[in-house]
């Protein structure tokens, strides 16, 4: 019964989306306030309908209603409650429902909080959102109905994929979707602006908070996913340049570029058509990512069961959305006049360089991800290749170097016309820190990869440069502490947010360098009681015990770790066997300090009689790896801090009352404007 309600409201949501896609757009074209206002109500109603549908599906999972096909396929009565709930989005149908729900919630947020938006812009934004929503709700209803029934109802389900039964992965998809789908806001604002034929500073100010929110969520989502891969897959790695990972990383790269270029639109009324294009591209990458993950056209290390027929539907949505948006852009963009002039050496110039490098990086990732598809299509299915990490390391890495070098410099530049000499003087501490880091790293690990000290230098450059810029803003050490403290409290939160986010990246570079340059690995077979030495440690398999969890049985290995004869820790690693899915998963034993992770897993028990009491043991020392997620956390915190800035409140900024064209408007900030 409840599932039927879900089915019904899902169809209602489709109808509401159709109305919302047409009526406000028409109203905006004719200037009729009544028609435009329809969008607000349908947006809220659509979000409510989808919430009810989602709740109905959740009810099915929580009560283990196996007459629902996807509950039967993805749940089991013995599963812990957390995974019954996360099972809702741990499958194709449910995760698409979550996708449209997030989209509808964003639309409803515009309807509720966007009171200060000009009515025509708001109506058009809501229309575009509804068009996307309509396409994906139709996709759900026609190809992936979550409410399909089974008759007769089976007695029990087949269980959720055990790898997904993990707290980290339970929250990874919702966060990721809030980011992915959140970029639809920037897209809808861009299309609405193209229809209106008007982009100004106020527009930039409206787009920024949405982009920032989506970016923050996406950063958190990607970090959570890579953390999960690290401790759950048991390979000790955290990023594999896998198509599914790239699918979330490409929107992040474009989104980061968009975040920066929208600042230029807001502050300087320049780079307008470029920002519009970026907004279109960012969301296009979100759509492309959805397509890659959901269609299974690419063989991925992380591939889930997928269905090519569904891919065709998403491909059609993709073609219409991207094709339509780019056509509209081609028609309208030439009419947009660029605003504020700036010298190449200026804050704007630095942000343009940031955009070029980020776009280029995203393009190489896109190329590497799609290359196997292109080659297979060109060769008629004869040549099948995959593009592995070496490609991405050789292309993406070098592009990041100038980007990070510039990141320390950019915030020191003044708007409009910067002074390279003054800026470089402020970077002297950063240069010293970088040289120190290179030297110390080289002395500490002389036999590591030759590039590693330079990567550490890069991180120190960015970290010290960011702190120096921040210190300069609050006059740290150049003025009395009371003055500094007063200036600190007077700092706009968005400026502090930027400093934190940049600092987060510096921290992350340290982690990436450490874990990829100096990782050591030990693989061997041990019987309980045996010890092996390697990687600077003595590893003893103390015991292997058997036991039962809620829906699995396990073998738990106790690994005793000693360093130079001194006891370090005993870590526990499990191999869990889930009988319902007939599948085994690994829980790594990890001992983390700020400087490194000790990481141990046990593998299979030997198959022959002689080896029946021996287990494969894999032990890693991953130096500095916690810094990766620490950095991500700092970046997310920076995003949140910036988002809490009063000036970013949605709807707070007003367009100039009489709305004269605002080209060449002087910047709203005094010249050495606080960095954002």
């Amino acid at each position: 019964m409840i599932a039927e309600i879900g089915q019904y409201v899902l169809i209602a949501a489709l109808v509401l989306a159709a109305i919302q896609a047409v009526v406000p757009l028409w109203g905006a074209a004719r200037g009729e306030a009544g028609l435009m206002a329809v969008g607000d109500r349908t947006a809220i109603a659509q979000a409510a309908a989808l919430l009810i549908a989602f709740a109905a599906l959740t009810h099915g999972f929580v009560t283990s209603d196996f007459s629902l096909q996807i509950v039967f396929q993805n749940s089991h009565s013995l599963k812990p409650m957390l995974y019954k709930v996360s099972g809702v989005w741990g499958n194709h149908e449910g995760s698409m429902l979550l996708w449209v729900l997030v989209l509808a919630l964003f639309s409803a947020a515009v309807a509720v909080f966007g009171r200060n938006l000009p009515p025509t812009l708001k109506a058009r934004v809501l229309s575009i959102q509804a068009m996307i929503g309509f396409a994906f709700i139709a996709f759900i209803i026609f190809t992936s109905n979550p409410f399909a029934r089974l008759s007769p109802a089976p007695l029990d389900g087949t269980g959720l994929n055990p790898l997904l039964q993990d707290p980290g992965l339970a929250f990874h998809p919702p966060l990721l979707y809030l980011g992915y789908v959140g970029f639809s806001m920037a897209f809808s604002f861009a299309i609405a602006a193209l229809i209106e034929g008007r982009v100004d500073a106020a527009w930039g100010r409206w787009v920024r908070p949405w982009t920032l929110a989506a970016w923050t969520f996406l950063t958190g989502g990607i970090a959570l996913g890579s953390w999960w891969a690290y401790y759950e897959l048991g390979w000790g790695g955290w990023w594999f340049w896998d198509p599914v990972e790239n699918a979330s990383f490409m929107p992040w790269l474009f989104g980061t570029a968009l975040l920066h270029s929208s600042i230029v639109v807001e502050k300087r009324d320049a780079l307008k058509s470029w920002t519009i294009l970026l907004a279109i591209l960012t969301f296009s990458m979100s759509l492309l990512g959805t397509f890659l993950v959901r269609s299974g056209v690419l063989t991925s290390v992380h591939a889930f069961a997928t269905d090519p027929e569904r891919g065709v539907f998403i491909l059609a949505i993709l073609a219409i959305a991207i094709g339509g948006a780019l056509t509209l852009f081609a028609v309208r963009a030439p009419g947009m006049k660029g605003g504020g002039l700036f010298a190449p050496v200026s804050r704007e110039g630095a942000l343009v360089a940031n955009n070029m490098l980020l776009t280029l990086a995203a393009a190489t990732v896109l190329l590497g991800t799609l290359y196997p598809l292109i080659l297979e299509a060109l060769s008629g299915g004869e040549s099948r290749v995959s593009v592995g990490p070496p490609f991405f390391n050789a292309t993406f890495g070098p592009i990041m170097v100038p980007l990070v070098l510039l990141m320390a410099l950019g915030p020191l530049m003044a708007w409009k016309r910067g002074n390279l000499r003054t800026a470089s003087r402020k970077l002297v501490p950063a240069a010293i820190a970088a040289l120190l880091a290179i030297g110390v790293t080289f002395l500490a690990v002389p036999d590591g990869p030759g590039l590693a000290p330079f990567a550490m230098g890069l991180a120190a450059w960015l970290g010290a440069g960011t702190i120096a810029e921040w210190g300069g803003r609050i006059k740290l050490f150049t003025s009395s502490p009371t003055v500094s403290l007063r200036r600190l409290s007077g700092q706009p939160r968005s400026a502090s947010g930027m400093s934190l986010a940049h600092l987060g990246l510096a921290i992350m570079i340290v982690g990436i360098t450490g874990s990829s340059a100096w990782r050591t690995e030990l693989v061997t077979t041990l019987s309980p009681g045996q010890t092996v030495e390697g990687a600077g440690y003595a590893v003893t398999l103390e015991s292997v015990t058997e036991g039962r969890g809620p829906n699995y049985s396990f073998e738990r290995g106790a690994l005793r770790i000693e360093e130079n004869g001194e006891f370090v820790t005993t870590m526990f690693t499990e191999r869990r066997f889930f009988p319902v899915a007939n599948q085994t998963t690994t829980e790594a034993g990890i001992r983390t300090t700020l400087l490194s992770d000790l990481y141990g897993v046990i593998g299979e028990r030997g198959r022959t009689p002689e080896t029946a009491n021996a287990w494969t043991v894999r032990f890693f020392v991953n130096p500095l790896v916690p810094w990766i997620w620490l950095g991500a956390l700092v970046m997310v915190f920076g995003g949140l801090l910036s988002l809490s800035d009063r000036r970013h409140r949605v709807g707070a900024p007003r367009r100039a009352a009489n709305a004269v064209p605002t080209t060449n408007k002087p910047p709203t900030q005094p010249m050495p404007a606080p960095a954002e």
Partner: protein
Amino acid sequence: MKRKHRRLLVVAVSLGLLGSAAALVLNAVEDSLVFFYTPSDLAERPAPPADLFRLGGLVEEGSVRTEGATTFFVVTDLNRTILASYTGVLPDLFREGQGVVAEGTIGADGRFTAREVLAKHDETYMPKEVADALRKSGQWREGEATQ
């Protein structure tokens, strides 16, 4: 600097960046393309020794044995077979009778040494290449482990 000059500068810098990126990509593509072979493909056009490639097929029933931390197994597309070995902890989804994709090199003795065995999230999943390979060798039964 006039607007025209500035635009020229932007165009020049972008072209320069694009050019260097293209050079990076071309340089990297050569070394890092990993081709996919089935056991039958290898019989028709052998892969050069020491070249990294991906081998896909099914793990033959009853073929898995271990020596220390090294696992030996036979990869089959039900027409031809290749003996493969892997040292280390196999992914949890590695099992006899199931699809497998392994990345590694082939020795002069025709043995495949895997550097990495790709894990899949789902036991019902069949790598697309493996499904295609089985179709090609005429051993694919539609409706069986299709997802």
